[in-house]
């Protein structure tokens, strides 16, 4: 396949940035999208040009490091798929593909397609944990958890923290990310003692980081590579109401 890649080039946070266009040939359907980017970078290095910086690590859809908006959609056209698991068989010979970084005020661009997502870590720091110092744990089998609760908690816990939800949202809201953690821990008996202070602290931090509010567009769920359910947001709103008006 022959393709044209239009990719965002930005030297650093201060740089204004621009789209650059590169023709590329020899793309096979079994290549992953990132392998196509590897090939482009090999060609750029060969010409002595600066390769395109992008984040990636596990390349099996679980670490959450890869972050590209492909033709305007975070992680590209396939449902429930991270960029690293997107294969070129979903594109056609002659296509022009536009690749951009996540766009959100709370995720400043570091270089090219690399953004700073440390705001997510700070949201977790504010309360996204169970206080269980090592060594203090009771016997694991002593607290049964209904299968359904465990299963729902798991669905929320599969969030990989990639930030696609924020990138897709017209308000750059981090509600789905935050709600996933609030739901995961809020459904487990271990998460009960800190449940309401957790949700308050996390929502405050989310706001402090400059993420926008939620207007129920649901696009966060649509692009989420792990399909985190929208109900988590409802659940979080329920918890925050209860926390504010006990």
């Amino acid at each position: 396949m022959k393709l044209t890649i239009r990719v965002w080039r930005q030297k650093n946070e201060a740089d204004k940035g621009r789209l650059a266009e590169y023709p590329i040939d020899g793309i096979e359907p079994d290549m992953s999208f990132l392998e196509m980017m590897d090939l482009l970078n090999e060609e750029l290095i060969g010409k002595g040009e600066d390769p395109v910086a992008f984040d990636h690590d596990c390349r099996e859809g679980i670490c959450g490091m890869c972050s590209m908006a492909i033709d305007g959609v975070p992680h590209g056209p396939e449902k429930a798929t991270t960029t690293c698991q997107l294969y070129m068989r979903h594109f056609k010979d002659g296509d022009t593909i536009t690749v951009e970084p996540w766009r959100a005020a709370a995720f400043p661009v570091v270089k090219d397609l690399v953004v700073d997502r440390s705001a997510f870590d700070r949201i977790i720091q504010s309360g996204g944990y169970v206080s269980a110092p090592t060594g203090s744990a009771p016997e694991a089998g002593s607290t049964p958890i209904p299968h359904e609760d465990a299963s729902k908690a798991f669905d929320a816990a599969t969030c990989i923290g990639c930030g696609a939800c924020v990138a897709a949202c017209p308000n750059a809201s981090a509600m789905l990310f935050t709600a996933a953690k609030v739901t995961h821990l809020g459904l487990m008996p271990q998460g009960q003692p800190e449940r309401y202070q957790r949700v308050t602290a996390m929502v405050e931090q989310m706001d402090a980081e400059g993420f926008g509010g939620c207007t129920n567009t649901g696009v966060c769920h649509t692009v989420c590579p792990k399909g985190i359910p929208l109900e988590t947001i409802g659940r979080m709103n329920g918890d925050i109401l209860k926390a504010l008006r006990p």
Partner: protein
Amino acid sequence: MADSKSTADTVEPDENLLFTVGDPLQDAKAPEGPIEKRWEERRFKGKIVNPANKRKRSVIVVGTGLAGGSASATLGEAGYQVTAFCYQDSPRRAHSVAAQGGINAAKNYRNDGDSVQRLFYDTVKGGDYRSRESNVHRLAEVSVQIIDQCVAQGVPFARDYGGLLDTRSFGGVQVSRTFYARGQTGQQLLIGAYQALERQIAAGTVKMNTRHEMLEVIVSGGRARGVVVRDMITGEIETHLADAVVLASGGYGNVYFLSTNAMGCNVTATWRAHRKGALFANPCYTQIHPTCIPVSGDHQSKLTLMSESLRNDGRVWVPKAKGDDRSPETIPEDERDYYLERIYPSFGNLVPRDIASRAAKNVCDEGRGVGPGGRGVYLDFSDAIQRLGRDAVEAKYGNLFEMYDRITGEDPYTKPMRIYPAVHYTMGGLWVDYDLQSSIPGLFVIGEANFSDHGANRLGASALMQGLADGYFVLPNTIGSYLAEAPYEGTDPKDVDEAVTAVKERISTFLSINGDRSPDSFHRELGHIMWEYCGMERTDEGLRKAISEIRSLRDEFWKRLKVTGASEELNQTLEKAGRVADFFELAELMCIDALHREESCGGHFRAEHQTEDGEALRDDENFAYVGAWEFTGTGTQPVLHKEALDYEYVHMTQRSYK
């Protein structure tokens, strides 16, 4: 080979010796007495830092996966000042996240005869009698506490309909002791450790530095006193000093280029420590995982593993006839060879990883492999779907099936998966004593980065167990003995300058070669050499050839490398160049280790040493030792130190899974 004199006459690639033999090595911290009392005894005899003094002691942790993340959190909770580093943009992304199958623990919730003793026995046997009994027993004891700890953190383990924790069985064992969280156990355990770590960051006990890569250890007065790191965004070279340094930087499987490791996994942290005097043990012990998605073409950048738990319900087969290229569903039952069930009737599809991998290689070598290039075997779920129903199979393996479909474009519910072995885990690593301290005082090594518990082969679901055992329970206890004696004499500024200068000079060399080949192109070629000659099957001739090819490719690397851009910016090509340079040195040591170990054991299979029916043939008389290598300079012979392995509790036999 062990005799350096006889080596001199036979070495082909270089007229120099490949290595020399130094003094034997002993684990000075190895406890004595009844094995079930040793860990308790060591903790009792170890020194304790009183709570007020803990605030004055500082520890650096490099790497924040299961081992480093759990250690950082636990040391922070204890009150130490912790500074942690990772190369990713968040500690939640370390490659522990990708572990699918589960974590072993001797809980015996199934009442199926499991016990600490049985987990200990299985692990020693699974490691093909090349691990330390004391360490493995401790691991088995601690396994029980790990599950308690993780559940307390809110890790959503799989539960049965009564709400109790579910377990499943895994390769190499006959009990059901593996706790799991669908096919994402590593992710859930890592998030548990990550959340505990973030809690400590918020509490101010841990200072986290993401996007920082460790490039040198600072050794002063014979002790590890700090690290030199590069801020990967600004390119700034920073020094950090502390009372002790902990390396939790993972394994070195990416030396093969194609592996199931993440793209960024590298050997740099441990290799730099090795160059500063830390012994590197058993580098040739590599685990080749039997159930990965086969290579599809030359563009491939990494391999994807399908959890070994699939072997619980999937049946492995190839056509009986060579070159049978019919579609699998049209091949009648009596023309299929379920070779694992045939050769190993008692373990069947659940034989340990090394055995399953080599068996797959053998049937493909016979010309019976399937898929592109004939390098693949079928993993078939049609019987399981018939027996359990599609829903039950989907509940257990749904996400793995989806992943397979996404990558290959084929549906495993209707068409058997194709799988082939791939490099997955490295049992070798920096040598450590019972306290997990390397041969450099003050330098501790935990998780996959050390060599300690898996011998020559790791059992499934044991990597997560070891990473968390080291990080939550072992290191936080043993490091106290070292820190109780601190502060040690001040760090000599000359030693710091020397380390910083070495890092800066190396970076400027990479940038100034200005050749015509990218670091990736060298890495790919190095990987080919390693997979061909130091992969699933090794021979004397092949390894010598590999050493000679590695050396000439390494020379070419230093002449033709091309790194664009500058150091004072985010420069992924520069990062890669440093990692590949270290892989070159490691690769040579791996081949030397594989060459010197004239036996087959676990993941190390020497074609010259096999039984009549093709099984690994150990040589306990001559090789029941840990091979710990001392660095003497690039291109000069490493020195081999042998630590004898004694087995008091587990009787050494030839492993049989028949």
